[in-house]
């Protein structure tokens, strides 16, 4: 491939290791279920498809998050972007529900992008502020008269129906994945994201409109979060306060476990995909094993650390 990010070997390592780890998780879970109930439901297509279905919401958020992380930025507003998009979508209802939700995401992305690219406030802090503004808006929104919160039939269809026996949410995730992967790899915008993420000043002096690239990336992230929020509302059949909260940290973790450099510039989409599956399965297996919260947190942290330690061998920080 002529235009891959270089040094495929180190880039492939995360995918291979993460994939292997997914197998380890499944084996541990299966050993557990075999010993406690004498069956191996984790290996059944039903269970796996369901994991992919619930994973698709995280997957879509993580896809957007990855684009922003490739720039060396981060989007901490995805939690309430999801919620706001879902709540506005159900409030509006009808056929305009989904477009409204997506528009909310795009608008949030524009605000984030404006703050980060034009005002040059660090994304870590600007998106945090936007997140709390969104939360405030949603509290105020419910604080007036309680809005309609039921998902529209189309939202339900997208998120919880099945098509050819496969949950339709997986198709949506797949579609988003294809779009993001092609965008990153085959479009000028995608390459400009990598270039800007590597060294913004050099990108700027190369005549790349880096501010628009940043703005665009935050819009992508906002739209992805909004889509995930709308889908999640479809899955739960309703939108509610705080519904996006459980997604922020896993999304970041998935991107990083997938081998994307947290400082930007390097990473492949396929890694994020694998990272999402890993996180979803890990959570699910821990839940099945009825692991108490304390153990769950410790395992979660240790997994991330140990995987990164395995990937990171040999990348010296100096120079």
């Amino acid at each position: 491939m002529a235009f891959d990010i270089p040094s495929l070997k180190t880039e492939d390592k995360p995918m291979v290791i993460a994939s292997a780890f997914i197998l380890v998780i499944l084996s541990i879970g299966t050993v557990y279920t075999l010993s406690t109930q004498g069956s191996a439901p984790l290996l059944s297509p039903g269970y796996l498809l369901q994991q992919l279905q619930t994973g698709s919401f995280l997957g879509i958020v993580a896809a957007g998050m990855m684009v922003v992380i490739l720039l060396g930025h981060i989007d901490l507003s995805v939690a309430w972007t999801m919620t706001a998009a879902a709540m506005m979508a159900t409030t509006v209802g009808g056929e305009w529900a989904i477009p409204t939700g997506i528009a909310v995401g795009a608008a949030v992305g524009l605000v984030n992008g404006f703050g980060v690219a034009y005002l040059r406030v660090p994304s870590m802090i600007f998106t945090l502020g936007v997140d709390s503004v969104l939360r405030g808006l949603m509290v105020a929104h419910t604080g007036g008269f309680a809005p309609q919160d039921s998902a529209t039939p189309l939202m339900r269809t997208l998120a919880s129906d099945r098509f050819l026996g496969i949950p339709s949410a997986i198709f949506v995730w797949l579609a988003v994945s294809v779009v993001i992967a092609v965008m990153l790899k085959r479009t000028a915008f995608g390459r400009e994201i990598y270039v800007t993420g590597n060294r913004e000043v050099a990108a700027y002096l190369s005549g790349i409109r880096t501010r628009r690239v940043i703005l665009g990336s935050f819009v992508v992230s906002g739209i992805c979060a909004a889509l995930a929020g709308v889908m999640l509302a479809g899955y739960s059949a309703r939108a509610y306060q705080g519904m996006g909260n459980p997604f922020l940290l896993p999304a970041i973790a998935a991107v990083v476990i997938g081998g994307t450099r947290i400082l930007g510039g390097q990473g492949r989409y396929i890694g994020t995909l694998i990272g999402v599956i890993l996180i979803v399965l890990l959570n699910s297996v821990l839940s099945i094993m009825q692991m108490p919260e304390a153990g769950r947190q410790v395992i979660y942290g240790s997994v991330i650390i140990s995987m990164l330690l395995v990937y990171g061998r040999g990348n010296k920080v100096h120079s």
Partner: protein
Amino acid sequence: PEIVSGPGVDPACFAPWNADTKYMQWPTKAGPYKVAVVNGFVGNGWRIQMIKTAKAFAEDPAMKDKIAEFKVVSTGTDAPAQLGAIEDFINQGYDAIVTIAVSPDGFDRVIRLADKNNVVLVPFDNVLDTDKVMQVNEDQLKMGRMWAQFALDELKAKGVTSGKILEVRGLPGNSVDRDRSIGINETFKADGGNWEMVSVVGNWDDGTTQKVVADAIAVHGQFDAVVGQGGSNGVIQALMDAGHPWVPVAGESENGYRKAIAKYSDEGLKGISIGQSPGLVAIAMKAAVSALEGNVMPQLISVPLPVATYKDLEDGKNYWSDLPDNFFTVNEFPPCGVNISGPSIMAQSEADVK
């Protein structure tokens, strides 16, 4: 306050927790009073409904004249900020402070200051592990027991005496979660049937609950009953999506959950709904004012559990089929003169209120 002997004022409203409950009395103050509500976390439906109820109750004719100044602040899950806010209101000369504690412990200092300044501090909902303040709550342990007993009774009626029960827990580390879970588990244990308890953590959140219930179903196949502490909409959704047959379900008081029970009880969704009511805030406010008026008050006020089973659900009365799923149906407590119904403050438009 002084520890006095009972009975207290208006026992229909301010019921003592049990026979051992102490009684307290504050020096009478002349009204109208300055009252503050110090909330912790804001950003879920329950808290929003609670705040709206508080605002509405402060405007209620029964209270309006007694309240000179009324403030609500939300400090987030930040113990020092909440303690600081309470202390600030004490320093500002407020007469009563109603609060949902972010932690069941750690209020010693503000309790001491409140007592020193004759300020009535009333924790409710998430109450404190202390008997030094007047508190208002529903009995969480009893709630757990009732849920479990209901499920057991329904199963017995079907002739089932053993099987798998799914317990959906709430926020780890929270005392409410702990008490409810103890109630549930001790009841099943005491029953003598052969019950296998599978427990998952749903954080009282619809989405999380739905996911963990779906996972549990995928792994365990089928359950004979589900006892969920919260996120009941999520429980129902997961059962429906998995094509799980309807079984007895115990849960909270979300409108959506009650709608589902009403709709599917004939198909086997034998449900019980017991709510932790956002209306507790109104009782806490009323108790605070009553204490300021010099009445004898129980230290721990037990608000009756608002129970509704599939047998007694009635559209337009204890659930509303045309209203959104997310609000909590139980909001009013007629014995206390708290008549702010869920729909009246959580309705979609001005028209729905009427």
